[in-house]
């Protein structure tokens, strides 16, 4: 059965089954696995949210962008500011007293806080998209990369909004393992539906041939902007979850390193593939954990011994090798079930 040829009823049934299984897994796993595994798993869920939404602009729409760290930072700060109570903020802002608006705004409901974080990130994306998508070329990459630095400069230089380089802490920890998993599932389902909708087809047409899709009447500027905003929205939500699960945030947490990790993830999985992004997240984050000893100076096997920073050398070589020899990643731009289907067809002759 091909997922794209399913009737609406069958499709909902499939989604319901996946949801039920995943929820059962979320419920059972804390009882089976150690705390360490659960921490790694919830980190993986957050990165799946980020990777899948990053893939939407980079892989599906084909616009090379380096934005995640900026939007994740926005999401994290908005969630933190919304969820901290006015008294707590009054106490915490040491470098300058908070602006009245920032101090008084208080939305303790995590659901609304996350949604607002996403909307703020999406609005910022809109203002960036306007100058960038008007011109062809690779300006998106450089503007978004610069945007990360602007956000950092902003966070450090406006102590009355963000508490400067001190950052914010004691952020309510609503993002438990279970709820992170639920948000991750919802995000994946939503983005899957976008990718395989009318908009998704338009996005792919922009990637494959912008001139042809313009000629077919696709408003490429609008499509690119929508893809960028959607991507920013979910990155903002992911940032909110990250802030809550860590509990404290500061401008130095959201460096280009974060974007680089996500880039490796989606390239490894295959640009444009949803299941590839998920697979990539699991492999890269698992690999990062496994290679952790490389950064530890006291670790050694024979001649190889750990040097702080060595892990990132290994990962950048990995990215280069991937691009040079396996540019299409693990899954190409197909989904994992496309391969299953292919195998079945071969079996059936």
């Amino acid at each position, binding site marked *: 059965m091909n997922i794209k040829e399913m009737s609406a009823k069958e499709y909902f049934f499939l989604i319901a089954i996946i949801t039920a299984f995943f929820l059962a897994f979320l419920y059972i796993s804390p009882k089976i696995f150690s705390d360490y595994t659960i921490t790694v798993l919830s980190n993986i869920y957050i990165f799946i949210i980020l990777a899948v939404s990053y893939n939407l602009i980079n892989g599906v729409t084909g616009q090379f962008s380096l934005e995640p760290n900026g939007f994740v930072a926005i999401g994290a700060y908005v969630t933190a500011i919304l969820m901290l109570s006015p008294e707590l903020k009054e106490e915490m802002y040491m470098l300058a007293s908070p602006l009245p608006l920032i101090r008084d705004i208080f939305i303790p409901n995590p659901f609304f806080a996350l949604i607002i974080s996403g909307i703020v990130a999406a609005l910022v994306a809109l203002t960036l998209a306007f100058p960038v998508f008007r011109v062809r070329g690779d300006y998106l990459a*450089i503007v978004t990369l610069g945007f990360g630095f602007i956000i950092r400069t902003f966070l450090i*230089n406006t102590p009355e909004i963000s508490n400067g380089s001190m950052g914010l802490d004691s952020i309510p920890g609503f993002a438990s393992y279970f709820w992170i998993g639920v948000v991750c599932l919802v995000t994946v389902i939503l983005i899957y539906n976008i990718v395989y909708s009318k908009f998704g087809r338009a996005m792919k047409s922009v990637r494959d041939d912008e001139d042809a899709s313009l000629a077919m009447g696709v408003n490429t500027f609008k499509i690119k902007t929508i893809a960028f905003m959607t991507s920013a929205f979910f990155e903002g939500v992911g940032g909110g979850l990250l802030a809550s699960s860590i509990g404290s945030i500061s401008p130095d947490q959201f460096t280009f390193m974060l974007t680089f990790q996500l880039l490796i993830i989606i390239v490894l999985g295959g640009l444009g593939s949803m299941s590839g992004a998920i697979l990539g997240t699991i492999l890269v984050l698992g690999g990062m954990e496994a290679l952790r000893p490389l950064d530890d100076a006291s670790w050694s096997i024979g001649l190889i011994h750990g040097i702080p920073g060595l892990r990132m050398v290994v990962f950048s070589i990995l*990215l*280069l090798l991937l691009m040079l020899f396996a*540019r299409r990643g693990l899954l190409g731009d197909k989904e994992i079930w496309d391969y299953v289907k292919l195998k079945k067809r071969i079996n059936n002759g």
Partner: protein
Amino acid sequence: MDISFILQQVINGFSLGSMYALIAIGYTLVYGVLRLINFAHGDIMMVGAFLAFIFLGILTEWKFEHITMSVFLTAVGLSIIFTSIIGVLTYVVAYKPLLDKNAPKISLLITAIGISFFLESLFNVIANQYFGGSYQSFYFPEIFSKIIKIGNVTIPVLTIIVPVLTLLLLGLVLYILYKTKIGIAIRALAFDIQTVKLMGADSNKIIAFVFALGSALAAIGGVSYAMVYPSIDPYMGMLVGLKAFAAAVVGGIGSVTGAVIGGFILGFVEVAIPGFFPELGGWKDAFAFILLIFVLLFKPTGIMGIDFERQRF
């Protein structure tokens, strides 16, 4: 506001601007030929500064004392040569295989980011392992830090040497581009790569030369940067490189003179705004990108107004 203060700002702006200009030329050359934002270019600049530091260390047996002019120039010269080689290597190893395979543009950009990150983390490991930390002070002959005083204006010798050097190098690059055979080849390549190949020119050699030239300029830019701030670190190239790219776009990417003009504009903006409005000092790093966004909004072709699809250089 007295005149000497303004003069002081102008001199500082010139000095900073010329460093951006040196790096921006490299971006613009590669962009003109390959239509590729060479993300690694900023890190090539870092490599240039680090290699100069390492050669200086070797020549002075890691004491960095009594550096004479000849020792310094030898170290910088070696650094320029090796940085050019590394620049050409990035093309041969990372970009050429993809260009040969006709890979989509996005693959090239990702590879460029990969190279950039590789150089940063590699030099981070080297610095941590052998020099005992990421940040290192940069040493140079004392004559450069001498200060000339004219009235109330204090001018470090360095802030005169760097802009003069930049203008000389700009002249050299323009001479190469417009008066030599390889320059004609580069301009032809920027115009139409396929026809150049059909004419029997070895496009690979020409592109490799472009990378070598850009990297050599970046190495000089890196050394001047290291001398002005007297320190180096493995991540210094990223922000400077991005700003220099913004400068190249402001000046009109593809145009060498445009890159230099853009570099000077950015240098003046970064010096003048904090100079006249001290409360905006912390925002210095954001100016380049705000400038970039404005240029993209109102004049995407930049000051020199080069039309991408037709004429370059």
